[in-house]
């Protein structure tokens, strides 16, 4: 039996795993504590679209029974998790945040869902997201926005706002996200949590509802760098069901996180990307301040800080908003009212499709499908899609040149702290600018992390620190991230997430 005074929802996943192994707590107790927390705070936060209480408890009971019987179990067995609704889950509703998939029960598991089940982690439910992951605020969810636990009037980032808010509100210790242009890192930044976009191909996408196939990557989300690393190792690895899956071992990210926590960065060269640093203006003062303080900490641990320039990044946002809509317009053609999802019945199949897609898709999805249809159409293809693919080459060359001078690159994750819900909803371009610092990594396929660097003095809201590494070098993110985290949490007396205001608890 555990002591009743411990609030397990505040613990790290690593601590939960150790306590489970030591017999200090049961998985049923952990799951129940999180279900109770969800019941208490998720009304206003709205991080979850679907809760699977019975399924989570059933997994927990089986893990507890196996542990009692002396069965050898994976490290995170019994530790609960939330899964972004972009991943298909057999027997559990999956919508990708879209009304067009309302009520759909997938007949199969995504590879990552299967790996979570094989790791014996109880699945608490599915987390909210912008419709088909198109957005930076979760306001484009077909089921209503998620709210930032730090300030319920503000956005939790997007598209993975549900996965980030669930962590920040202590509704889950770990969640899964997907990052096409920043959808893991930007929500982590604005909720004071940790999120990693692995190298393109590092995590199988089989069963992930595709947004833009040359950009999408699934990744782990947690409240600490080590927790995120533990989940990364569960999710990662080769999968023959995904043609883009890298046939190579999962990087040793847990080992890197443990090494980094020793706070010795002697010999490490860290590059500050001038174009992403806010040096040219446009970044909130407190964001720049926390970024520069973090650089000082890294320097204090022995790292050498150099400035690098990536001039083509100026064109990255434009290239992204050509490539993403183009690929999305093709990927979303499958929502045709025939095999699954919504059907608005009309006289002919064509009229049925027209009516179904009009009713089932939200405005942002419609905007991007039309933009993509335009960019791919005859007469415009070379000017838009062809040019964007060339910009992609230039962005990659900039990264190659930068990484020739340093081991990792760093920047603020987002130019500002979280903005108010509704503030940018009618201005798509302003919304797109949220991802200005995260998009280049997706264009180049390289891994990136966001971790908390403090709160901005002017508004008390979280600021994220982004680390980027060369392709296949995901472990570097964890080493540098864990070093910075250890230094910061020593000063704060614990993780930044513990400083979030207490949420009002429903009876």
């Amino acid at each position, binding site marked *: 039996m555990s002591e009743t005074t411990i609030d397990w929802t505040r613990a790290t996943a690593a601590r939960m795993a150790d306590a489970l192994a030591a017999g200090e707590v049961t998985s049923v107790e952990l799951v129940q504590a999180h279900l109770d927390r969800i019941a208490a705070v998720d009304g206003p936060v709205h991080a979850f679209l679907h809760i699977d209480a019975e399924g989570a408890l059933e997994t927990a009971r089986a893990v507890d029974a196996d542990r009692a019987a002396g069965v050898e179990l994976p490290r995170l067995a019994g530790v609960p998790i939330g899964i972004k609704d972009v991943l298909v889950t057999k027997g559990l509703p999956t919508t990708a945040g879209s009304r067009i998939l309302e009520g759909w029960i997938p007949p199969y598991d995504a590879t990552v869902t299967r790996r979570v089940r094989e790791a014996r982690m109880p699945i608490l439910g599915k987390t909210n997201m912008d419709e088909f992951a198109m957005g930076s605020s979760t306001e484009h969810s077909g089921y209503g926005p998620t709210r930032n636990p730090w300030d319920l009037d503000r956005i939790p980032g997007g598209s993975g706002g549900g996965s980030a808010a669930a962590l920040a509100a202590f509704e889950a210790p770990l969640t899964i996200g997907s990052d096409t242009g920043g959808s893991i890192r930007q929500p982590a930044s604005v909720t004071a949590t940790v999120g990693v976009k692995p190298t393109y*191909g590092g995590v199988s996408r089989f069963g992930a509802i595709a947004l833009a196939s040359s950009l999408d990557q699934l990744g782990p989300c947690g409240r600490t760098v080590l927790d995120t690393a533990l989940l990364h190792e569960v999710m990662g690895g080769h999968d023959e069901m995904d*043609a883009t899956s890298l046939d190579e071992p999962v990087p040793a990210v847990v080992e890197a996180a443990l090494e980094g926590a020793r706070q010795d960065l002697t010999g490490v060269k860290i590059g500050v990307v001038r174009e992403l640093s806010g040096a040219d203006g446009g970044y909130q003062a407190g964001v720049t301040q926390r970024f520069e303080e973090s650089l000082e900490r890294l320097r204090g641990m022995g790292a050498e800080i150099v400035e690098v320039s990536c001039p083509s990044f100026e064109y990255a946002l434009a290239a992204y908003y050509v490539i993403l809509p183009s690929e999305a317009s093709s990927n979303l053609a499958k929502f045709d009212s025939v*095999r699954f999802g919504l059907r608005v019945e009309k006289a002919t199949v064509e009229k049925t499709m*027209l009516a179904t897609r*009009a009713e089932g898709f939200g405005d942002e999805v419609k905007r991007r499908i*039309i933009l993509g249809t335009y960019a791919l*159409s005859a007469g*415009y293809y070379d000017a838009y899609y062809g040019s964007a693919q060339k910009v992609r080459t230039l962005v990659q060359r900039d990264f190659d040149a930068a990484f020739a001078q340093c081991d990792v690159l760093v920047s603020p994750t987002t130019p500002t702290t979280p903005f108010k819900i509704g503030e940018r909803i009618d201005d798509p371009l302003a919304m797109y600018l949220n991802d200005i610092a995260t998009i280049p990594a997706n264009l180049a396929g390289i891994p990136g992390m966001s971790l908390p660097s403090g709160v901005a003095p002017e508004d008390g809201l979280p600021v994220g620190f982004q680390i980027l590494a060369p392709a296949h070098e995901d472990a570097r993110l964890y080493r540098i991230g864990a070093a910075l985290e250890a230094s910061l949490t020593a000063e704060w007396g614990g993780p930044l997430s513990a400083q979030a205001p207490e949420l009002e608890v429903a009876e």
Partner: protein
Amino acid sequence: MSSLERSDVARLAALARIDMTDADLDRLSGQLAVIVDAVAKVAEVAGEDVPATSHPIPMANIHREDEVRPSLSQDDALAAAPEAEDGRFRVPQILGEEA
């Protein structure tokens, strides 16, 4: 490159099989024109000497033995269909009345 007109949006929406009311077109056309103008800057640096990149990591096609493997059953595949009949997806009539 010229900006996107309302009539262009109507044509593209039809191509993409999305019904649009006049109100939809009024709302989306202006926003789309602004976005199209903003992204057109990709052409500024796309010189003829720059090769295009389609995928971020170089990859080759993968192959496997041509053998039967377990897959979805017919019942599973049809379970979420809006309408099914005789083990198939059922759809409204394919041709319009004028055909």
